[in-house]
């Protein structure tokens, strides 16, 4: 039996990075001579040479650096494909006061329709975040106990969108919630780019006892 040298557990250096690195170094030292070499590398080199974190050292590119380079180039040449658009269709939540102690959120169902979400899901989130109780009345309006400003609703809706509506990879708003039957997990599946991510179920958290305490029997 021949004993072979084992390289287990040691990461192998990808061999192609060495070549690329040298070309880049030449670009910086002799700008005049190397323009012909740059013909191949032009696709990868962005137009404006800002200080790149890998300048001057001979280390490998990190994954984040490569990723940011790709996105920069993509953004410059094909801005539409980069898909940075957010959901700019946010409607302004309309809130009214009902009496002195209650706030009515009129637009809930409309906003839910814009987000392609169930009103119950959004309602659970709102009530958990506000820390109060509330319900949907006959006209599908959300009546919340307490006095809240429209700005606070906006903030909470923004948080809901960032967590439960917007896809992380394409920033699109066409997502749906799916329940994985086997594991009882909740997934967010994007219709545009097809990516899935898991989201936590909405938990109410600790609600302190506020208000009158009736005599406990």
């Amino acid at each position, binding site marked *: *039996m*021949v*004993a*072979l040298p*084992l390289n*287990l*557990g040691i990461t192998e250096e990808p061999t192609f990075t060495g070549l690329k690195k040298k070309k880049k170094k030449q670009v910086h030292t002799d700008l005049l001579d190397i323009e012909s070499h740059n013909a191949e590398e032009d696709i990868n080199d962005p137009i404006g040479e800002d200080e790149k974190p890998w300048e001057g050292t001979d280390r490998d590119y990190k994954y984040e650096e490569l990723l940011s380079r790709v996105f920069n180039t993509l953004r410059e040449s094909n801005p539409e494909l980069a898909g940075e658009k957010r959901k700019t269709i946010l409607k302004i939540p309309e809130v009214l006061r009902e009496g002195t102690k209650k706030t009515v959120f009129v637009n809930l169902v409309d906003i839910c329709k814009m987000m392609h979400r169930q009103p119950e899901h959004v309602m659970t989130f709102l009530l*958990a*975040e*506000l*820390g*109060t109780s509330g319900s949907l009345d006959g006209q599908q309006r959300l009546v919340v106990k*307490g*006095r*809240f*400003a429209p700005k*606070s*609703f906006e*903030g*909470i809706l923004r948080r809901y969108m960032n967590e439960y509506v917007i896809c992380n990879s394409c920033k699109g708003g066409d997502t749906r919630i799916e329940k994985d039957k086997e594991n009882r997990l909740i997934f967010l599946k994007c219709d545009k780019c097809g990516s899935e991510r898991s989201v936590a179920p909405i938990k109410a*958290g*600790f*609600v*302190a006892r*506020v*208000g009158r305490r009736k005599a406990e029997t």
Partner: protein
Amino acid sequence: MSELDLQIPSAYDPFAESNAEDSGAGSKDYVHIRIQQRNGRKSLTTVQGLKKEYSYNKILKDLKKEFCCNGTVVQDTELGQVIQLQGDQRKNVSTFLTQAGIVKKDHIKIHGF
């Protein structure tokens, strides 16, 4: 015959790295800071999810002195011990906990309006 040698797993433990990171303070558990409304402009701040090893009474006492407010520790059946403070102290609590080194900023979640 030589292939058998190649399949012997090395002494490198792939989980050593993740174990070292995970054994820090509460990797999966978050500290939730919530706010509730009381009468008029008054509100109540709730801090839930701190690690059980901490002495809640000492933390509470420091918080009360720092922010000049009243507070208490409530025992909840499921959620353990919860700190309640009077007033809207969410930002204050957040900076206090990060500066004291009790929780990292990534593990704090602020809820509420």
